[in-house]
């Protein structure tokens, strides 16, 4: 159906959320979820670049088997800080706090998140935690690994464990508050007619994520608190020399940190559901199954943490239970994969950059997830744990999965967020580079892992050098690919073409307001009469109603 012309908003609203006040104060004290999202975008990206620099350092060091670029002490800090920054300050907030914050209210037709002040608070908490951590890193950093295993972290490490721990602790509350806000918003702020089963899947995914955030994050907060007190007071609850138990720490840590990997992947899965459906211009296959599989992942994700502890001295019986449940939790992910694939069937698939990222996600997450099964299988885990196989597994799911999902999402929504189109050409190049570079970096690591190269090694056996060189070379390509968006997206703000309200011609509510949206999102309270991803006439897509103004009054 041709509806190009009618879908343009003829005159732009005079004030959008970006032009509504220019003073520093109007940003720092804003309650507008969109401005908060933009501030998150800037900070989280900065953290990503820092984490990426650490990654580059790791790969440089690993070019040679000896620890020549860095001493092992420095190397230990580098990978620890890489892990901590990437996980706590980049990957966990990235999609919920940027894309979720910006689009969740838009997608459900709300004026804002339910608790805007709490939203701002969560940003500030994130900043405080981040600054504290950065400060600690400048003072000398930490070398415990991002997992802070005891008793090394409590008794033996003489680095800034306390400060970084505190940073992570504080940052945890930012994540909790974001989750809390999402839950409330989804429950109470849906526009008339926006029933649960009309919610876009991105909203479902964020909702499931929010559940995990609320139920899991407090546990890591208390764990880190215990660790800190233990470090100062040396009471011994994690120290076997005086009656404690280091494994208890691991239980508490992974109780959060396994669900946390679903905090990282679920929102990306939400983005992918959006992209796949919208860029094949077809209703998603098995909507309910995707929605419920998100919830299933959120719930079952809490029952498998022991799979990180198969060789740690956990009991055999516990190992069996955790291994079994690990297999169970893989099934909902499988359901999603199949449904996405089926959505392409008989669609009208376009190859815009966001879709390229989405397709890349499917391939890479597939590999990452399947190798997760290798690790969940106890017999294999014994050989593979703490080797580069693990490193490869989690980069496949975290970078190949979440980061690609995020990149897809940010391209997809960029016109809406900024009112500008990015350069499609460069975006495609970057997507390709990332995909190729990524595989070059991390595929050899599976082989390295099975060969027995332990992780967190500053120096390694000489015969493994060739594969490591491949990996480092790939990292260069990957780094270039990931850095390019930073450049061309920023450039697009100045040189980019002005974006229409609905550049992709999609039915979602967020596309039915101006780009960039006005402060209160919609000029009139929208009323939803169509299912999610319903292309076609029923949803009013090819009528005037596409414009925010024409939305029916509540």
């Amino acid at each position: 159906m041709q509806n190009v012309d009618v879908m343009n908003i003829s005159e732009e609203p005079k004030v959008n959320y970006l032009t509504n006040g220019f003073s520093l104060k109007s940003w720092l004290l804003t309650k507008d979820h969109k401005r908060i999202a933009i501030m998150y975008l800037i900070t989280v990206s900065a953290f990503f670049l820092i984490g990426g620099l650490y990654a580059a350092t790791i790969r440089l060091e690993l070019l040679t088997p000896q620890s020549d670029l860095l001493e092992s002490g420095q190397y230990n800090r580098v990978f620890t800080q890489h892990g901590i920054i990437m996980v706590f300050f980049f990957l966990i907030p990235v999609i919920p706090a940027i894309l979720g914050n910006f689009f969740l209210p838009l997608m459900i037709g709300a004026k804002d998140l339910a608790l805007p002040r709490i939203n701002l608070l969560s940003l500030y908490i994130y900043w405080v935690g981040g600054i504290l951590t950065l400060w600690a890193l400048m003072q000398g950093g930490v070398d415990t690994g991002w997992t802070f295993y005891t008793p090394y972290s409590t008794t033996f490490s003489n680095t800034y464990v306390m400060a970084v721990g505190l940073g992570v602790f504080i940052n945890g509350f930012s994540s909790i508050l974001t989750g809390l806000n999402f839950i409330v918003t989804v429950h109470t702020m849906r526009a008339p007619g926006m029933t649960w089963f009309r919610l876009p899947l991105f909203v479902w995914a964020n909702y499931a994520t929010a559940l995990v955030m609320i139920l899991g994050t407090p546990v890591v907060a208390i764990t880190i608190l215990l660790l800190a007190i233990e470090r100062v007071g040396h009471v011994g609850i994690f120290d076997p020399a005086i009656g404690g138990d280091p494994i208890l720490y691991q239980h508490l840590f992974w109780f959060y940190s396994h669900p946390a990997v679903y905090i990282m992947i679920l929102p990306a899965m939400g983005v992918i559901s959006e992209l796949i459906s919208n860029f094949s211009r077809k209703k998603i296959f098995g909507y309910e199954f995707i929605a419920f599989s998100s919830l299933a992942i959120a719930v079952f994700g809490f029952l498998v943490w022991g799979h990180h502890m198969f060789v740690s001295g956990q009991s055999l019986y516990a190992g069996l239970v955790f291994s079994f449940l690990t297999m169970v939790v893989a099934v909902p992910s499988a359901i999603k994969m199949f449904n996405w694939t089926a959505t392409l069937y008989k669609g009208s698939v376009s190859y815009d950059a966001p879709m390229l990222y989405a397709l890349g996600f499917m391939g890479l997450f597939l590999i990452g997830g399947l190798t997760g099964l290798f690790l969940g299988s106890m017999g294999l885990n014994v050989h593979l744990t703490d080797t580069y196989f693990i490193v490869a597994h989690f980069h496949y799911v975290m970078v190949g999965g979440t980061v690609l999902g995020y990149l897809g999402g940010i391209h997809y929504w960029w016109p809406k967020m900024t009112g500008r189109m990015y350069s499609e050409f460069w975006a495609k190049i970057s997507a390709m580079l990332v995909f190729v570079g990524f595989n070059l970096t991390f595929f050899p690591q599976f082989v390295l892992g099975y060969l027995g190269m332990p992780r967190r090694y500053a120096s390694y056996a000489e015969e493994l050098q060739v594969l490591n060189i491949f990996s480092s070379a790939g990292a260069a390509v990957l780094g270039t690919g990931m850095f390019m968006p930073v450049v061309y997206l920023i450039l697009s703000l100045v040189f980019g073409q002005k974006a229409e309200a609905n550049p992709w011609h999609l039915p979602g509510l967020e596309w039915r307001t101006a780009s960039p949206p006005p402060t209160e999102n919609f000029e009139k309270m929208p009323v939803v009469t169509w299912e999610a991803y319903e292309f076609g006439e029923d949803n009013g897509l090819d009528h005037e109603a596409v414009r925010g103004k024409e939305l029916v009054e509540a």
Partner: protein
Amino acid sequence: MQSNSWVPLFPDQASSFAWQIDYLYFYLILISIAFAIPIVAAIFFFAIKYREKEKFATPEEIHGSTTLEIAWSIIPFVLSMTIFLGGAIVYFNQYRPPENSMEIFVVGKQWMWKFQHGTGQREINELHVPKGVNVKLTMTTEDVLHDVFIPAFRTKADVVPGRYTTLWFNATEVGKYHLYCAEYCGLNHSGMGGWVYVMEPKDFENWLAGGGTGQTPTEIGKDLFMNKLGCASCHAGGQNQRGAKLEGIFGTEVKFVGGGSAKVDEEYIRNSILNPSGQVVEGFQPIMPSFKGQVTEEQLLALVAYIKSLTPNSAPTGTTSTPAPSTPSANANTATKSAAANSNK
């Protein structure tokens, strides 16, 4: 043996159960391919066949299919159960050290591995083992977590301060293999490792003879038991025996005053020496003094070895060249008694 003239793509296979792990690995690769190829193929096929032919077209709607959903939930589930079962079986085989294994004691410390053979040979960061013999490592650490990892044997286990963990293997190929510490332990984690040398049993014997300076642990233990620590004053046997009879005790089940029982394993003997009154054996008074602080870790291991070597009816003599006591050895990890359960609150 690995050389650095070529790029290895697959690790050496040098233990009796390595093939199991490798087969499991191949099975998983197979499953992965079986899923990945069709999915990727379908993605490519659909993406190309149904590529956009008209800007912003509205293709026909397809809602979904419950049959399909059920199919693609059940099939992966069933397959994943085979993965689970396979993994569990392989894990079981690795978990329980077979009886009459040759025992080697391992102490990890930042950043080195200390090994002691049954014959008293000590090694640091190098481990010599005979081919074709079941070897059991009884391990602990002096400081933080470490992890013994021998890729060629496909086995690995954390060592935890405050307790013994075990690991076993049966080397099948003569050669020199990597030994790593696989649990992050601080500054020199990547330097904490060395080599495992697998030798023909003959050569191993020679090696032991050549380098074997000191006494065997059993001998050291005997010396301690008889003379240095005076255990014999109570445990010597005969009529004046005030202490429990230790001959042949290893591997049996003992009952305690006030109920409860335990299987006698390394752990138990160790506790009995450090902490005798913790578990008083039925029929005795809690008179045995604690030797906590008087014996070192190594002396303890020697005492344990000695007590293990005592067989019923054999006068406490001691040394045999093969230090493999034929008593069933209980795995310290899996001893059945629950430590924490019943209590009085």
